[in-house]
């Protein structure tokens, strides 16, 4: 019989053609984690500028202590589904805290952010429904659409007029769920939230906003881009993750829909997987409290984001979007992007190398994400290292000083 792996031959060929020499992104090992912004990689102290650790809470003493206490009190894991033995008082407290943050009646907590999307999108829409998604949606949203069995329609990225056209063509009888993200993770561009909300209101569609990269980052109490835009009360469903600003792992979905709780029985990615371990739940709960009540972390994050954005712009780099905690540097040639990524790592700066099809418009990106825990000196070092290496690789004009 034929080898199941034959179909991966083009992918293997493409991977090998990338020509990594000194290191490869999928083989990076964090040998020692020194802080939210530093690790030892290949024996070298390295600034972490690609971890989505936006608020730097992974080492917050309060979160760490809460996790320790829960670990001692409730053990290493729940060994069960939320609908069997896997709902502890911590899970309920975390759901209540997130519902409180968003001011919603309901919150479901899931074991990862990916599962939060699979469970909520994939269950809310069924085979007789339509899901309309932004073209640049995350893989978990695309996979959730496939899982749902719904009719899938895609609209042009961040384009309210394009959404309007598609909703109009679908007609008033369709049951439609529109799915967008608050902040898009590759380029760091924000959804035009007010305009998109206006369009979906006009057609009577339900809206889900994925705030994975925006919880903790936007809005008065860190709820995300919809809060910042002042339209949170018009968004039917909001999902997010604990693996970025919240500093651990897990996901959530909040809503005011009166029948929302039925998802606990209908959503298979909620039912058929083990619930989050008590220590994870405890640190998430503490982090949610912190991000809602301590805006200073957000302010520091934004200061760092603006410093990096301004520094790289001034050096002449072409960036993906206006300043945000995701700063994506566009590198026209793929081979140069690979080389620069390797050299950044060798020079003590870790960023994400992102390429099509994970990126839009066929872009090769050196994607940086900032943290409130970065110091201004670390941000300066990132800018200087980028600039020096880009010059020596002729990506920027000027001599390699």
């Amino acid at each position: 019989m034929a080898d199941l792996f034959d179909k991966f031959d083009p992918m293997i060929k493409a991977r090998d053609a990338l020509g990594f020499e000194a290191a490869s992104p999928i083989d990076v090992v964090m040998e020692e984690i020194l802080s939210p912004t530093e690790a030892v990689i290949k024996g070298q102290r390295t600034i972490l500028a690609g971890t989505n650790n936006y608020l730097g809470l992974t080492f917050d003493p309060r979160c760490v202590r809460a996790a320790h206490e829960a670990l001692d009190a409730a053990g290493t894991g729940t060994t069960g589904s939320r609908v069997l033995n896997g709902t502890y008082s911590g899970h309920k407290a975390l759901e209540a805290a997130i519902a409180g943050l968003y001011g919603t009646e309901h919150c479901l907590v899931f074991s990862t952010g990916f599962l939060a999307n699979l469970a909520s999108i994939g269950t809310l829409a069924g085979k007789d429904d339509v899901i309309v998604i932004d073209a640049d949606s995350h893989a978990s949203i695309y996979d959730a659409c496939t899982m749902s069995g719904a009719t899938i329609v895609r609209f042009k990225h961040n384009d309210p007029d394009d959404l309007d056209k598609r909703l109009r063509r679908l007609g008033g009888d369709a049951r439609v769920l529109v799915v967008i993200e608050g902040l898009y993770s590759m380029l760091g561009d924000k959804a035009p939230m007010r305009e998109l909300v206006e369009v979906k209101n006009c057609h009577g569609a339900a809206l889900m906003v994925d705030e994975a990269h925006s919880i903790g980052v936007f809005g008065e109490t860190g709820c995300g881009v919809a809060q910042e835009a002042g339209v949170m009360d018009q968004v039917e469903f909001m999902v997010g993750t604990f693996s970025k600003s919240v500093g651990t792992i897990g996901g959530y979905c909040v809503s005011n829909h009166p029948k929302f709780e039925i998802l606990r029985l209908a959503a298979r990615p909620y039912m058929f997987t083990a619930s989050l371990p008590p220590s994870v739940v405890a640190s998430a709960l503490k982090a949610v409290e912190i991000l809602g009540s301590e805006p200073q972390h957000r302010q520091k994050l934004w200061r760092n984001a603006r410093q990096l954005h301004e520094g790289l712009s001034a050096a002449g780099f072409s960036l993906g979007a206006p300043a945000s905690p995701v700063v994506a540097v566009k590198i026209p040639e793929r081979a140069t992007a690979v080389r620069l990524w390797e050299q950044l790592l060798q020079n003590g700066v870790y960023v994400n190398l992102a390429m099509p099809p994970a990126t839009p418009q066929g872009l090769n990106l050196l994607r940086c994400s900032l943290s409130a825990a970065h110091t201004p000196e670390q941000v300066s070092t990132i800018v200087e290292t980028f600039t020096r290496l880009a010059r020596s690789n002729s990506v920027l004009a000027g001599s390699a000083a």
Partner: protein
Amino acid sequence: MSKTLDDIRELIAPYNKKGVPVAPQTTFATDLEWDSLTVMDFVAEMEDHFDIIIPLNLLPDLETVGQVADAVEGLVEKRNG
């Protein structure tokens, strides 16, 4: 050759970087060497041109230009009732 097919060939042209001759049996993945993102962008162009919705669910069954033309004609008919 149908008007629909002619229109589709025109829409393909800007994406046909290598100038591959386009016939009904031309395939998107192999002949035109389009990746999945290019296919989805092209679908959006066709949706706007014909004022229809082409769900992404249909894409796995649309391998050739001719199959797309047939599908588009079907969707236009459906829209016109």
